[in-house]
Structure formats: C-alpha cells, structure tokens
C-alpha cells in the first residue's frame, strides 16, 4: 500500500513562444498523502493551473520527476497517460466543460465510454445514484444549457467520480459560481474527502481554501513557506 499518492520532485515547466521562453514552474516539490484535501492558492499567473495540469497528466513537465500512486508517470506515452487519467483521476474544471449536446446522465457516463468494457446497466444505475446524491435526481435528462451553473458543476463532479478515481483534481471549481452554489460545491468536496477521496484544489479564493485540510501558496512558480 503506497501512502503517498503524489510525489513531485523538482518539477519545472517552461513555455516557449518564439525566441522568448518563460519559466512558469521553477522546481516544485510536493507530496500529497492519501486522504488529503489540499488547496493550492496563488494569484493569477503564479503557475497554479499549470501545476494542476501536470498533476492531472494534461501537460508534461519540462523537467523533474512525478510519481503518481507509486508509478513514475513523467515518461509515459500518451496512450498510457490516457489510461491513467481515465482510471485514477477525476477532473473538475472552472467552466464545467460538459458536452453541450449530451444529457446530464450521458455526461456523467462519458469517462466510462473510453473504457474497453463500455457502459453497463450497473454503471448507469450508479451514475443515477450519484446525480441523486448531488441533488440532481430529477434532472438526469437535462442538457447542460438547461442547468444552472451550480447544477452543471455538480454534474461535472458526478462525472469526475464515476470512474472511482484515487485523486480528484479541481481547478477553480467555484470560480464561475455564486456564493450559495460555491458553498454547496465545497461542502460536497468536504463530504467526499471525509469518505476517503484525495482532493487537490486550485483556487485564489481564501474563503474556499479554508475548507481544505492543508493550504499551499504558490508565487512566481514556486511554493512559499508560511
């Protein structure tokens, strides 16, 4: 049993635009244990989203090593990364990123479509239960456009959970929501964490970050110690 879910060592990320290169991350070191609820805070442009994308395998670090669930992942192929994203990670984005022509239920089931087994009846029942639990039991047939921001984000949370991920990654999950919906969403996060799901959340809002068990602040591409 691996205790540390995420181990980042000297992670750097440099963006190259023409001849100008810009180092966003400057040697990040981070360890996240199972069952943690970590908030990464920082001003815009501090590199917090880039860091989350690297943790979420949506972006590759320029250098450094990344061990996810006991496996070095910084050198894996696209195929293998897709597999890990599908099985081990759950994403929640600021702008929800739901597929506009699919219903709430179909959106939730989407990650399972990319598994060899496809979607079973059991999965469908589980998705319905998830939506019910998140208060959307009567909206499973609704398209994203017919849902409020808070409801859309809850569909996205259900989608992130359907694959039974080890790690939930949230990028400004309350950024597009009013304060009431924000509170609902963050409470869901708390509940999920209490059930044992590890969460890494990026936010610039201290009100939201205070719900996390641990807060790290990033500035100019590196963590600052409190």
């Amino acid at each position, binding site marked *: 049993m691996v205790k540390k879910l995420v181990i980042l060592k000297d992670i750097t990320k440099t963006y190259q635009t023409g001849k100008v290169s810009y180092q966003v991350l400057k040697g990040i070191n981070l360890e996240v244990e199972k069952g943690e609820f970590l908030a990464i805070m920082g001003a815009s442009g501090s590199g917090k989203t*880039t860091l989350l*994308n690297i943790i*979420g395998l*949506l*972006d*590759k670090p320029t250098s450094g090593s990344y061990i996810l669930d006991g496996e070095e992942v910084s050198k894996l192929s*696209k*195929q293998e990364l*897709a*597999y890990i*994203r*599908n*099985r081990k990670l759950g*994403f929640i*984005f600021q*702008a929800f*990123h739901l*597929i*506009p*022509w*699919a219903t709430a239920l*179909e959106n939730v089931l*989407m*990650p399972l*479509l*990319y*598994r*060899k*087994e*496809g*979607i*079973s009846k059991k999965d469908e029942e589980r998705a319905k239960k998830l939506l019910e639990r998140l208060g959307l039991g009567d909206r499973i047939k609704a398209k994203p456009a017919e849902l409020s921001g808070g409801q859309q984000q809850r569909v996205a949370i259900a*989608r992130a959970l359907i*694959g039974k991920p080890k790690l939930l990654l949230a990028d400004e999950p309350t950024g597009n929501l009013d304060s009431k919906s924000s509170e609902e969403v963050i409470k869901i996060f708390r509940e999920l964490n209490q059930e044992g799901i590890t969460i890494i959340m990026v936010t610039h809002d201290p009100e939201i970050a205070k719900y996390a068990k641990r807060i790290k602040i990033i500035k100019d591409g590196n963590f600052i110690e409190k």
Partner: protein
Amino acid sequence: MKFLYIQILKDVWKELISNKVNLFFMILSLVISLTALNTIYSLGYSAKEQILNALANVQFGKDAMLILAGGGKIIGLTTTRRDTLKLGDAKEIEKLDFVKLVSPISLGTSEVSYKGNAEMIRIEGVFPNYTIATNWYPKTGRFINKNDLKRLSKVCVVGFDIPKKFGIKDPIGKKIKIRSEYFEIIGILESKPTFGHFNRNERIFIPLTTAQRRLFNKDYIDAIKILFQPGTNIDLAKYKIRQILRKRHKLYGIEPDDFRIITPDMAIKFFTSASKILTIFLLTISLISLIISGVIIMNLMYANIEEKSPIIALRVALGATSQRIIIHYLVMSLIIAFISGLIGWILSLLILKTIAYFTPLKAYFSWLTFLFSLSFAILTTIVFSLIPSVKATQVEPSILLKSL
C-alpha cells in the same frame, strides 16, 4: 464489448445532429454531386444502348453490312458518280459463300396523294427479302412478292404512320397516288422505333422493278443491304466485296470508290459519337461538381472538427486515447457518406425513372459509377475529418481546454 460499439455510435450520432445545419449542408453537397454524376452517366449510357438496340432492331447487328451508291463520307454529299451500283453487283455479291442474303434498294422521294392530301414521301423500291434483311414485317396484309416484282405490279406496302398521315381508313385495297400512278395498298408494316430525323414509319415500299421502270426511270440502285452467315469475319468480307465492286465498276489504282461500305461498327460510331461527346461533356461537368462538393465537404468537415478540438481535448482529458478519437470521427464521416449515398442513390433512381417515363430513354443505373462516386465522397469526408481530429489529439489537452 458489442454494446460499446452501439454506445460509440450513439455518442457520434448525438454529436452529429447537434449541428443540424452543418449536417444538412454536408449531406446536400454530397447528394447533389452523387446524383448528378450518376444520372448523367446513366443517361449517356442509356442513349447509346438505345441506338444499339435500334440498330439491332433493323437487322443491323454485327452480321450485317450496307452498301450505298456514291463515294465519299458516310453521311453527306457524294463526291463521285452515284449511278454505277447495279442489280448485277448485288447478284455478284450474293455468290459469295459467306453471304446469307442480299437485298437491293432503290430510293427516291415522290409526291404521294390521297383524297386531296399531298405529301413528299420517301419511296423505297425493294425485293421481297427486304422483310428479312431489316427484320421488319407487315402488321396487316402482305409484303411484296416475286410475282409483283416480275409483273412490275403497282402495289405498295406502307409504313405504320402513313394511313394516319393521309387519313386512310381500312387501307388494305385502297389506292394511293404516287407521282402520277395509282398504287394499291397491300400491306401495312409494323411500327419501328426511329432515331435521328427520319421517321421510318412514314415510308412507302414498292417492288424494286416498279420503282426503277415506272417511277424513277433509272437502271441503278441506291443501296444494298447484306446479311452474312453467322461468324463471318466482317473485315475480310468488306475487303472481298470492295474488290468485287471496284473490279465491276472498273476502278483502278488511286481512283476512289464510287460506293460506300457501311459496317455496323461505323454505324454505331456515327450514331454514338454525338451522344458520346455529350456524355463526356456532361461527365466532365459532374466530375467538376464532385470535386467542388469535395472541397465544400472538406471545408465543412475541417471547420466542424477544428471547432470541436476543445471537445476533443476534453474527451482526451477524460481518458479517450487518440485511437478512440480517430474511430469517433471515422464513424462520423462514414455515417455522413452512408446517408448521402443512400439519398443520392434513391434520388438518381427517381430522376432516371422520371426521365424514362417521359422519354424513350431507358433507366439504366450503373453501380460502378455509383460506387466510384460514393467512394470518392467517402474518401473526402474521411480524409478531411481525420486530419483535424488527429491534429487535435497531438496537442497537449491543457492548451485546447482553455478555449472550451
């Protein structure tokens, strides 16, 4: 596992109908080009078939030949004397062992009148074997026989449209005036399909001897229709007949022929060359339309998927492999091509049937052309859906997700 394919199909279908306008235009452009190409090709083919059938119908199949008096081009004014083809020539040709039948014809146009109706009508002086030579038999009454020929009888067999043209009721036994002589109608020929400008059903046939002596006052004939034994080498036959005629007409050295030998090949070539040029012209147009529609599809498909690249990135983020993305858009282009192919197929059949209903052309549907145009359409949709989707999977999803 098998449900997975249905689930993928459902996923693709939902995406496809989410932009109905786009889908409509993609299908429309494909359908138009498919329909145009197939209809045009079919009509061209059908016109050619029609001519071949018509030729076969008048016994101008592959074992036949026609000799016309006067040298020169097949159609047009002759460039030599045209009074040199004689009955003797026909008799000489008949002696050849590969010749089955020889039917000489004397031609002329005379004023024909019946009860105050007068028309210029093509008169043909023929032998009794004309019916066999042209596969054309009387519908009622009888054809000219040997006795008519011997006695220079003033009898005639009329084409199917003649009684109507002159308003003759119960034509058999009635007398019709040709130039200044009265001829008794002894038969009416069955109706024959006509092509070109000449209505074959508006002709009058009289004994060859009567035509030469009583009507046209000429000792030469205008044409000889020859039927060969099955399996005759037409080229060899043509060569031998030409030698006989040149010798009999005393033509030596570089003196040009004063007759024309028309083989079925030449007739087909002549009658089909016009339709062939038209077919090529129309085919070119429809090929251009196919290419244009290809460009349109290319644009629509490319823009459509380019626009969707953030969605592709999202799918990748959720765990879709590049293969799955490619399968997704492959299935999508196949669906579009399949729908368009189906509509194009039905539409071209409908158009062909409609044209066949109003014109003598037969509806001929060419699967080869259809499959050719369909595969072209499929290829364009596939290529131009795969390029942008593959491109989208190459980029780090985090970059594309920003624009979602």
